[in-house]
């Protein structure tokens, strides 16, 4: 399973755009890149998933360069409620058990 590296923490202010970059140098051909968000005392929840180029949904955008060795989660105009831990994962949906490995995540603190 491909391992990921993310910054341990980031600070931002309300209304700013936040970009969290994840490195996954040994990503395999069949691996997808998935981001989860976790609030205190809750389980993680899915934010966005992509394979290459750019993916956008109502919550975030995901940018993936051509070599796929990294990815960037972009949160537009963050609010205080976006304070959470963000996990980057890579995994193969055809892998037995769909196992995804969670690293330490990035703790985002949004300040007023």
């Amino acid at each position: 399973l491909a391992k990921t590296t993310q910054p341990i923490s980031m600070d931002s202010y309300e209304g700013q755009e936040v970009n969290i970059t994840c490195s996954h140098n040994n990503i395999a051909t069949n691996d997808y890149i998935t981001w989860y968000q976790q609030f205190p005392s809750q389980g993680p929840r899915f934010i966005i998933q992509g394979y290459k180029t750019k993916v956008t949904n109502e919550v975030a955008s995901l940018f993936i360069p051509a070599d796929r060795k990294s990815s960037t989660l972009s949160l537009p105009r963050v609010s205080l409620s976006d304070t959470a831990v963000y996990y980057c994962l890579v995994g193969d949906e055809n892998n037995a058990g769909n196992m995804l490995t969670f690293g330490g995540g990035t703790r985002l603190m949004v300040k007023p």
Partner: protein
Amino acid sequence: DAGITQSPRHKVTETGTPVTLRCHQTENHRYMYWYRQDPGHGLRLIHYSYGVKDTDKGEVSDGYSVSRSKTEDFLLTLESATSSQTSVYFCAISGGLAGGRDNEQFFGPGTRLTVL
């Protein structure tokens, strides 16, 4: 939210006692997982199941066993609890039959276990 519950939500026990945590789903998802979460470690996979009576080890399986006799239930057992197993335990499910993102995992609310 996906129909996934965990019981108990909180438990305090003593070293050496057996403990069983239950995960129950109403989504008919194929895959079920048990994770533990400790400060500074993110989530670590303990065991997972890819069908009834089909289970396999994860990253930190020592000291834990699992069973899945029905699609909807996945049990995690600590045969003899130790203080190092004090943690928050999350159950997750994935692989819905009706399409969608098969590897999207839906997490339960967590069980906080304290071993004294």
